[in-house]
């Protein structure tokens, strides 16, 4: 099992750092899956995560000038490792003024993901920072829980409003209630609602676009005015929104009535899917 890769371009490095910062905000511990073409950051929907799951995918050739990997075996040419997301983003933070960054799986006293950065220094001499991020290698028998989640047959699909606006609304709502209802219809209307004994607050977003529907989807014959809703933990929604520091290239959400809300984002060339289940 081998992995070594190199990023030589500053733009790619900054983008990778931003993605890593986002992952660090979305999950404390997550799984990194390394395959010949892609890197995935995965959070599986365990009880420990409150049922929230995440699937982030990036094409390795968009980032790395060199990329070599050898999985556990020829038939299973993949590597699954678990790490603390914040360690990776801290390590990448030191690479802001870097000539090049190398990442490698190593075993220095314990299994690590080693990030090695060649820094530009005031003098022309080389300065190298190395971070050994402790990891846990995930055995193959557990891989089945870490596969790409199936996008459910949703009732409503809608483009999201500006995430920063959504975030500031949800931040205020969090102080009033722990649960929030997100509802939307096929007419481009999305509402965020909270209800307590004393007060009900609803924020209405209108004229949001409707993403093109796949044929045969559950939402095809649906009355466009009818809302599909999900009641979710407000903190989980806030955590998701807080992770989006940059405005995504594309952002939409799919709602399965009373079951789950699925956020589907695209940050340039990196896709992020985030699932928040309904509270019972």
């Amino acid at each position: 099992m081998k992995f070594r890769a190199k990023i030589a371009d500053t733009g790619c490095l900054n983008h990778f750092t931003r993605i890593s910062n986002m992952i660090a905000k979305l999950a404390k511990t997550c799984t990194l899956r390394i395959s010949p073409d892609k890197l995935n950051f995965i959070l599986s929907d365990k009880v420990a995560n409150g049922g929230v799951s995440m699937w982030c995918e990036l094409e390795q050739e968009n980032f790395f000038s060199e990329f070599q990997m050898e999985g556990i075996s020829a038939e299973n040419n993949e590597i699954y490792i678990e790490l603390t997301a914040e360690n990776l983003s801290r390590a990448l933070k030191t690479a802001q003024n870097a000539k090049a960054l190398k990442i490698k799986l190593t075993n220095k006293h314990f299994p690590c993901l080693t990030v090695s950065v060649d820094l530009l220094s005031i003098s022309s001499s080389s300065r190298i920072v190395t971070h050994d991020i402790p990891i846990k290698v995930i055995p193959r028998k557990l891989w089945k829980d870490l596969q790409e989640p199936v996008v459910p047959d949703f009732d409503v699909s809608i483009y999201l409003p500006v995430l920063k606006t959504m975030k500031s609304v949800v931040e205020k709502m969090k102080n009033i209630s722990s649960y929030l209802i997100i509802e939307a219809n096929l007419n481009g209307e999305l509402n965020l609602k909270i209800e307590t004994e004393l007060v009900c607050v609803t924020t209405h977003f209108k004229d949001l676009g409707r993403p093109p529907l796949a044929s045969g989807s559950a939402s095809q014959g649906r009355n466009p005015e009818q809302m599909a809703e999900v009641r979710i933990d407000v903190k989980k929604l806030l955590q998701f929104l807080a992770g989006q520091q940059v405005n995504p290239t594309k952002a939409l959400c799919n709602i399965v009535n009373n079951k789950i809300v699925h956020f589907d984002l695209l940050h340039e060339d990196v896709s992020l899917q985030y699932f928040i289940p309904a509270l019972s």
Partner: protein
Amino acid sequence: MKSFLSVFRSLALLEKTVEKCYISLNGRSSRLVVQLHCKYGVRKIHNLSFQDCESLQAVFDPASCPHVLRAPAKVLGEAVLPFPPALAEVTLGVSHGRRVILRSYQEEEADSTVRAMVTEMSIAEEDFQQLQAQEGVAVTFCLKEFRGLLSFAESANLSLSIHFDTPGRPAIFTIEDSLLDGHFVLATLSEPDLQSQDLSSQQPRQPEPPLQAHSTPNLDDFTNDDIDSYMIAMETTLASEGSRALPSFSISPGPQPPCSPGPNSEDDEAEPSTVPGTPPPKKFRSLFFGSILAPVHSPQAPSPVLAEDSEGEG
């Protein structure tokens, strides 16, 4: 110090308005008097009360330290940036190729399941104005204090000299210019007797699998610490159903090299007696020594290389 500092709080304001400053001692009323004579006849007088106290004289002599490094404070200031702000201690040493290494020092707790990230900064000899130390020496001291004295030296644009000796002996940091010279003395961690770490047990480290092949002892080289040998060990213990044929290998028995800390290597726990004048010795994890020294107790012939190294670094 706080009350004295508050007199000089706003440097910009002081530069603009203060013409003269008189500092005097008023023994009768136990007051340190700071008089700021400002523009337009304004006078600000601060009376700070003080107490007589016994002064402690630290006994140290930079000349008695065999090893010296000197570099502009700016170089060292940049070098500590990658370390997490909360990190308590850092190890400073000289490695192969006369490079100066700063490495985060982690106190290893026997029951910790979450390991901390290890950060290492490597600086070329050319960045130093003086480097009088052999490869393999290293001392560990408090990073917070080091950062403090670095920021002072940086603000005055001075070079910092670091005089150090064996681990356990104080490290002396000096700065000097025409107006002042400063000596900062920091305690360093002492290392336990290397012999006592020579364990004959093959106790596994948790959570790793019980079988472990020792890779060739060249841990400093980025290309040689592949995870392959570890992974092969893991595969055999998991009885995976893969069809890949794994070569058999022998585990090198015998003493673990001093560079392998683990929950079971803590049996040399007998409290070392404290030497007056030095801080209580802590366990010194020779993680650092492991990476820069040739192993003191060389393990048996290195186990066969099980997987080819990928191409060396360009």
